[in-house]
């Protein structure tokens, strides 16, 4: 599974990321393709995404602004309506009391029966009244109409009484009182003709008030309730605290007008708080009307729009990134490949030029050395001949030995110069049909004895017996001979050599010669076809074998490559055309003349 993923990843992973070939590096126009890739991708992505994101953000801000002001406006309207209803509710009842005290007079009011009638009429007219009582200036309740037995009760030290004395009219907050039921006290003060004051006090049920309030509740997200000026909740709240407990939200500061502001609630959620301090035209009240709206709930439609926009933007970003990445990768890949092709061509050209110039130099040197070498050879040979004839030196084995050393050295020099010339010369091409299998077996015949003696297994694997190509027999023979020689030198006792030949495409044959011998380090691989490069001991090798082989393969319009791992073996692969064209080989000749 992981392997498979890696494969897929490897297929789309840009080629230039595995920058492999140090050999080609000097020939590249651009050195750091990863950087180019990263820079191009980032610039393009930034270019595409910055305007998109900017527009999105600006758009969001505009929406936010308009939504906020819309919400505030709506809340304000709601608060204002509810406030008007509240004010009206209270004013109506206060006015009724005022009307009663002014119209009916103290004497009639203190008549319990009459008071009961008034209570009944008020209940009929306005509703929501529980009881009615008249209190004299000392705070003693002198008359009472209602369900409770409260006659004679002393209110002189109660807040409502003290306040009402001061202000003539009083609206209490909602409280439980003696009767343990939520109620509101409203009271008005009146002056009798003799100048003494008396008070008419009524208790209001809270149901009507709560109904009035809740009739303004719009939707599940709005919460309308009353608090008193110290923040104690007066009517039931859905979310912000229990009745007669402290509201969980901060108490708004006084404002004569309805207000709506953005805020956060105790759970950190965005809310819109609308509030109004309720005052009637004739009296202040302790109530603050609170309207709390959950912003999230109110913004449902907008949030849906948000999420649509978010999806769209996210999708666009993905598409942009994907398209930019793929396009850039493809382009940079193409660029890299073109550059690499160029670099490869340049590297090959430079190698060829190098080989050609070395070839020329080698040929020149070889030729110049050959003549003095011939002179040494003849002279030493003549001296040896003379010694052989002359009685005086005939017996002197040592002397003859020395001469032989000279001749041996000359012969060795001769071999080198011959090889050099072979490396450099352009020789005639003699093209004929060659059976590859026979040719390989012929070449191996030279090594039969050695293979037997060193216990080296040689496998020849040519699937087609009649695999024939039209090429230069002599050169091919030398190529194979050189490579087999090479392999034999690389392998130890008991190793194995494998020669394989088969069609490699329609008009090419491939020949591989692989051994499991000592192999060579990667450093040497690049230099292996260079003349005079040898890993053998000084004096043992000329370093020309593979250089010559390389030249020969090129002359046959072929290619040669080598792979090797130290201590694992070496594989030479030759690719040759099945049919060589004579003219081409005549003109071509990067090596020698």
């Amino acid at each position, binding site marked *: 599974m992981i392997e498979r993923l890696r494969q897929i990843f490897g297929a789309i992973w840009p080629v230039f990321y595995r920058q492999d070939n140090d050999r080609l590096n000097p020939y590249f126009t651009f050195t750091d393709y990863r950087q180019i890739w990263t820079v191009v991708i980032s610039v393009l992505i930034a270019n595409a995404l910055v305007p998109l994101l900017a527009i999105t953000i600006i758009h969001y801000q505009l929406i936010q602004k308009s939504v906020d002001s819309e919400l505030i406006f709506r809340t304000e309207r709601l608060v204002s309506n509810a406030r008007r209803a509240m004010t009206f509710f209270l004013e109506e009842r206060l006015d009724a009391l005022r009307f009663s005290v002014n119209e009916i007079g103290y004497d009639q009011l203190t008549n319990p029966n009459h008071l009961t009638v008034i209570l009944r009429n008020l209940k009929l007219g306005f509703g929501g009244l529980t009881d009615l009582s008249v209190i004299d200036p000392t705070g003693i309740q002198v008359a009472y109409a209602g369900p409770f037995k409260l006659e004679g009760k002393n209110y002189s030290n109660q807040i409502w009484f003290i306040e009402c004395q001061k202000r003539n009219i009083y609206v209490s907050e909602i409280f439980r009182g003696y009767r343990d039921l939520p109620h509101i006290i409203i009271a008005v003060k009146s002056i009798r003709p003799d100048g003494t004051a008396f008070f008419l006090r009524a208790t209001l049920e809270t149901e009507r008030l709560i109904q009035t309030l809740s009739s303004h509740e719009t939707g599940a997200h709005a919460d309308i309730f009353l608090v008193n000026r110290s923040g104690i909740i007066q009517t039931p709240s859905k979310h912000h605290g229990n009745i007669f407990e402290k509201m969980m939200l901060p108490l708004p500061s006084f404002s004569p007008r309805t207000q709506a502001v953005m805020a956060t609630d105790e759970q950190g959620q965005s809310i819109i708080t609308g509030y109004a301090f309720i005052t009637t035209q004739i009296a202040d009240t302790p109530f603050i009307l609170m309207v709390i709206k959950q912003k999230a709930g109110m913004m449902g439609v907008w949030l849906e729009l948000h999420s649509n926009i978010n999806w769209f933007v996210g999708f666009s970003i993905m598409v942009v990134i994907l398209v930019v990445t793929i396009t850039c990768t493809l382009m940079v890949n193409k660029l890299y490949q073109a550059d690499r092709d160029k670099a490869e061509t340049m590297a090959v050209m430079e190698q060829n030029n190098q080989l050609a110039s070395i070839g020329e130099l080698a040929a020149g040197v070889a030729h110049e050395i*050959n003549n003095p*070498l011939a002179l040494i050879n003849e002279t030493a040979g003549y001296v040896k*001949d003379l010694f052989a004839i002359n009685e005086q030196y005939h017996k002197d084995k040592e002397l003859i030995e020395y001469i032989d050393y000279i001749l041996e050295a000359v*012969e060795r020099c001769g071999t080198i110069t011959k090889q050099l010339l072979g490396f450099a010369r352009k020789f005639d091409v003699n093209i004929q049909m060659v059976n590859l299998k026979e040719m390989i077996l012929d070449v191996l015949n030279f090594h039969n004895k050695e293979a037997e003696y060193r216990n080296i297994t040689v496998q020849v694997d040519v699937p087609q017996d009649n695999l024939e190509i039209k090429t230069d027999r002599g050169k091919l023979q030398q190529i194979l001979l050189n490579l087999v020689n090479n392999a034999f030198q690389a392998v130890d006792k008991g190793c194995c050599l494998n020669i394989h030949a088969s069609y490699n495409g329609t008009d090419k044959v491939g020949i591989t010669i692989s051994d499991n011998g000592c192999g060579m380090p990667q450093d040497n691989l690049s230099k292996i076809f260079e003349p005079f490069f040898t890993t053998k001991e000084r004096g043992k090798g000329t370093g020309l074998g593979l250089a010559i082989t390389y030249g020969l393969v090129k002359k046959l319009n072929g290619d040669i490559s080598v792979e090797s791992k130290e201590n694992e073996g070496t594989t030479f692969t030759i690719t040759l055309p099945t049919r060589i064209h004579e003219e081409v080989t005549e003109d071509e000749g990067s090596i020698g003349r």
Partner: protein
Amino acid sequence: MLSKRLTLRGIDVDCANTGAEALVLVEHMRYDVAILDVKMPGIGGIELEQKLSVLAPGMKFIFLTGHGSETDFEIGSVEAAYYLAKPLQIERLIEILNEVTE
């Protein structure tokens, strides 16, 4: 030097330093074999061969070359004349001499 070595081995040798000298020699004597350097000052080896074969038909030729690889030699050997690459081994020369004059 080569001529001296051949003389030591009982072969009659006349030595000419240039092509012109060789032509003069051939006019006066009959030779079995001419050993020619391919590259010589004045008349080159190949040209000299053509001139000599006109003067002395039936004469065999052995070419010496300082500019040859083994492959050259193989190819040269296919044709009638012999090529020998310098520096040459005297034994090989003697062998070939015997071969051509047999």
